[in-house]
């Protein structure tokens, strides 16, 4: 058909690993709170970079404040990145999670 098939041939041995088990999404809109967790929080909080959040019954308000304000080594996240409604979902997920449940 076009150059693409040539690339496919070329890339026959190239490896492509999908990002985690989240449903991939490139629309620029988060599909779920789990997706935000996987593609933002988990890169640090499930990766030995930041404290584990799951299974700790963290208080929702506390998580909200930390995410919006940032804290020490934790960067802040703006509404334009994660809307209030989506963040509420992430907070619920995190605060009610069992240990290791969101990996």
């Amino acid at each position, binding site marked *: 058909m076009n150059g693409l098939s040539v690339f496919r041939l070329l890339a026959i041995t190239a490896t492509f690993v999908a990002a985690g088990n989240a449903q991939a999404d490139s629309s620029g809109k988060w599909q779920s709170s789990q997706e935000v967790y996987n593609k933002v929080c988990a890169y640090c909080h499930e990766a030995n*970079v930041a404290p584990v959040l799951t299974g700790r019954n963290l208080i929702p308000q506390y998580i909200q404040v930390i995410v919006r304000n940032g804290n020490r080594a934790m960067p802040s996240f703006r509404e*334009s990145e994660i809307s209030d409604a989506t963040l509420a979902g992430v907070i619920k997920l995190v605060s009610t999670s069992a240990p290791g449940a969101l990996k």
Partner: protein
Amino acid sequence: MNAKRKTLPKGIAAGEFDKAIKELKKILGNENVLEDELRLAPYNKIMMPVPNDQHAPSAAITPASVEEIQAVLKVLNKYKIPVYPISTGKNLGYGSAAPVQRGQIVMDLRRMNKIIEVDPDLCTALVEPGVTYQQLYDYLQERKLPLWFSCPAPSAIAGPLGNMVDRGVGYTPYGEHFLFSCGMEVVLANSEVLRTGMGAMPNSNTWQVFKWGYGPTLDGIFTQSNYGIVTKMGMWLMPAPPDFRPFCIQYPNEADITKIVDALRPLRIAMVIPNAVVIAHTLWEAPCTPVKRADYHTGPGAISDAAVSKIQKDHNIGAWNVYAGLYGTKETNDANWKIIEAVAAGTGGKIITEEQSKGSQALQYRFDLMKGKPNLGEFGLYNWRGGGGSIWFAPVSQAKGSETLKQMKTAKDILGKYGFDYVGEFIVGWRDMHHVIDLLFDRSDDDQTKKAYACYDELLHTFAKEGYGVYRSNTAFAEKVAATYGPVKRSVEKKLKKALDPNNILAPGRCGISL
């Protein structure tokens, strides 16, 4: 005046500001004009060693289109209110999402996040400012397109446009990001929309494939500047190589840097190694391993050389750790691999292949970055000192061994004087190197914060005296850094500013440019 308002742009009366805000709300809708302290908080989380107040925004706006930006600029010109555009706003250690000067309105373009086009034949993309590398990665994955991009370490949360306009770098063969951009759309202060290069011509379909266009090539003046708001960027993508062979070479002694650079330079210039070679010091690797500083050093002051040696032995980390990759077919990589082996053997380095790297966090995130796979592994750096203080000191150096040792020693001495560790790496561009040092400090400790400021100041001026300039700077030091580059360049920049933004409303002070 809005009773809750605490911060205003310099020289703007509260009543005037209120009027402007009202007009902005009419254009953008109430919810896209942020004024409350709580909603503005994420725009004021900085890592620099200066008070938050110095970089507090008066408001933030989140336009969704070029037309909205054009309308907003008319209002801002009328009231002479300055605006600070950000794209993904993750310029961490360089100013984050906060404005360069207190009181500027942040124009947050994160909502404009369309991947407008990916051409799989020509291997190009056209993106808006709010697109993240993660989003682009997902896009290519979903469509099973065998195309790679280059990204900086904070890849998952940062984006190609914001990174490119600050002339950031990454780790694939396309790592010098401005070099691999092709065509921009820019909204000028007077609301005109400029497309650079071939994009200037109506109906052109070569905007993303030929950079120069006709007459002067203007793209450069929209990077590290404040002459326009970039709303689209073309970028080149790399065909995924059939065979990718990342590797690390570890060296036991700090002084080895001389022979490492001299041995690798010819391979880099000849493109046997096509990507930016990173030469990372022990103390960059340790926090990303992760090693705890407190296990090796307690109390004030910089960590001792003896402790650094112990870390190397305990955790199998080199004094220097070279990262690079071979990108090609199996046959070409087999041939080039022999060269790499010979160079490592000849210089006393120990090769770690991808196979052998399994289980090492520090190696894994690097190997992923070398194929443009997003992660945030490098944020381990912030656990080293703790407290969220960081500024990057990143002088440019020639890719010559003698230069690196000299720069490293000078930096280490100055850092040590203020009680900070040398956490550094050299990123070999092509003939240059970015000597990137993360000045890590505990920002919750006033004394350390003051020392970090003084330390950066001394680093900057000592290096400048030797003729070494930084490739990029944090917003707190923008003016001082600009001054190190001499008066003529600055006067030209000012003339351009006057011509393009006579009311000085676009990010005045960014990179030291203002009227």
